[in-house]
């Protein structure tokens, strides 16, 4: 049972990070119906910038308290990512807004490769150890452990999601965003500056990505120039799971995907242990007798779950859990 609770806690933590990144995908998709392929790289750049700032500040035996250093890292990562989000929109998307759908997708892939390899040049090809500067107290809940970092990640994500929801549904600019998402031309006729709104959407998405990047860095204690790829894919799966274009859907999808992944990784070894199944037990009697276990798939298959969820959703419910619009909106 404590494994179950432990995996729920881990799942909630990674799930809230996925949710933050998924919000970026879903907002951009909602407004221009395109998948921002390079969004995962923005997360990576966020983590990298924060890494540099934190390492620089922490290394000099500075009198700054650790929490301030961490905040400085976040504060540096956010504007850096915002700038990259804006550049992405200007270089990869705006010139191709009226081109066939394949074209901006291909430029986005190109931008993603460029960002990845620029990061490689700047921050080296080795995994970088994220400095662990704040103490990480461990609390115990029902036999499972939850760390201070995990609590902070979950709370901060919830706060950011609440802020975003308030921004989109309660402010004038939020109305402009929703109007543009509904219909660009009509919104322009009503006096909404569509270009500005679209650029702002990319920038907000990038800011969320920056925070998510710092979270990933502190949680796993490591950053790498390729980290954005898998994270981006999973977050995209989360956005599709919740219903792409739908804010609440992205949050729900992120959390659910995190839980599926954590529970899957926690239990797949047990489920595919052939010696536990009556019929299979006979088939592999010899090997079961030898060491008692014959595990077909271990937790190294963790990354596969996101894709399986993605494919299953697209096949059985392409509009996602909360989405009303179908994927085929041209």
């Amino acid at each position: 049972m404590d494994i179950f609770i432990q995996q729920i806690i881990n799942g909630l933590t990674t799930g809230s990070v996925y949710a933050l990144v998924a919000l970026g995908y879903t907002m951009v998709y909602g407004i221009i119906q395109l998948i921002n392929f390079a969004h995962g790289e923005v997360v990576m750049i966020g983590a990298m910038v924060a890494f540099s700032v934190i390492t620089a500040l922490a290394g000099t035996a500075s009198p700054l308290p650790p929490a301030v250093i961490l905040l400085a890292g976040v504060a540096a990562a956010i504007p850096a990512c915002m700038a990259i989000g804006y550049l992405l929109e200007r270089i990869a998307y705006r010139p191709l807004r009226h081109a066939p759908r394949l074209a901006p997708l291909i430029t986005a892939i190109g931008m993603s490769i460029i960002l990845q390899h620029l990061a490689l040049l700047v921050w080296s090809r080795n995994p970088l150890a994220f400095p662990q500067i704040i103490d990480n107290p461990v609390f115990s809940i029902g036999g499972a452990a939850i760390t201070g970092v995990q609590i902070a990640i979950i709370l901060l994500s919830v706060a950011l999601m609440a802020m975003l929801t308030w921004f989109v549904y309660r402010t004038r600019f939020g109305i402009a965003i929703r109007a543009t998402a509904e219909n660009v031309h009509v919104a322009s006729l009503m006096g909404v500056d569509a270009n500005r709104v679209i650029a702002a959407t990319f920038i907000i998405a990038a800011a969320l990505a920056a925070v998510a990047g710092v979270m990933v860095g502190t949680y796993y204690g490591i950053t790498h120039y390729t980290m954005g790829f898998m994270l981006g894919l999973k977050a995209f799966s989360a956005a599709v799971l919740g219903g792409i274009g739908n804010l609440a859907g992205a949050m729900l999808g992120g959390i659910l995907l995190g839980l599926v992944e954590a529970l899957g990784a926690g239990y797949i070894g047990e489920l595919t242990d052939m010696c536990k199944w009556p019929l299979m037990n006979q088939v592999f009697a010899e090997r079961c007798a030898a060491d008692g276990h014959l595990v077909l798939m271990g937790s190294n298959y963790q990354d596969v779950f996101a894709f399986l969820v993605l494919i299953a959703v697209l096949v059985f419910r392409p509009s996602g859990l909360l989405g009303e619009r179908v994927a085929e909106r041209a």
Partner: protein
Amino acid sequence: MTKLRNTQPALYWCGVALVAIALIALPLVLTLVGTAWVRITNLAILFTFLALGLNIVVGFAGLLDLGYIAFYAVGAYVYALLASPHFGLHLPFWIILPIGAFCACVAGALLGAPTLRLRGDYLAIVTLGFGEIVRILINNLSSPFNITNGPKGITRIDPLQIGSVEFYNSDTWLGILFTGPAKYYYILLLILMAVIVINLRLQQSRIGRAWVAIREDEVAAKSCGINTRNIKLLAFAMGASFGGIAGGMFSAIQGFVSPESFILQESIMVLSMVVLGGMGNVWGVIAGALLLSFVPELLRYTVQPAQQALFGRMLIDPEVLRMLIFGAALVLTMRFRPAGLWPESRHRQEFSGEHRT
């Protein structure tokens, strides 16, 4: 070209003969420069196979596939498993290549079936995920039953052998030295010719026209009586089987396969070749593949010494530079020549911005 053949047949056939002689003499000349260049040429031909296969899916049928390298992996591993000491099997290559092509074809249909309803960007992501799943499987299928030997890969794969001719070592025929890579070059060239002919014929065929119809407007194609489901599946399956054949040849030539050869970067590289050359145009795609295969190699030989001379050390690894060039090629092509450097005539109209899907 056809015009020239009809008006001045003598000139046309002279040209063909010259090209043929140049292609035949190429490895012998390259051997003088260095056997490495023959190897590079062989890899370029393999990537041309891949680009032509992907062109069927992306260029003809308009389905963006980002996991194409998975089929290459399937072909390569089928060959490796059936002709290496790993399982103790040593089947001849002309049995394995069709098996590899068939397995890749099945994998292509498996990928195609659940994704038929998706278009554009969704399809891209799902295929990308599929490619990753295949790579993760290859990486992990080493326990509890050792099928793929995990990240270590499979070594000592049998080289090609036709009759008594072994492709592994050098031979001297008619007083000319033929190195191993040079012999592989000829067989690759033969297969390449066949693949090109198949592609050109496919493009003109009923199926090829159906693919283009689906690419341009799926609903319209359907209402014209095209069975879009089967035709799209066919595109996936055919594209995949070309990848499978290329993979088999790769295994035989390298003698070693590992999951590292089948990462996403390779898929993107093949896609860049198709996009840069001109989606849908067979000759454009070939040119794109050769360009993106040779330019990075040339860079490798020039950038390194140039940087050494200028800065006294290596600032940018040629490998990184290669990826940066690919990324920039994708972005710049889409912005300034969206139909590629040598566009297909029909695509040229589509990308001119006069109509939007």
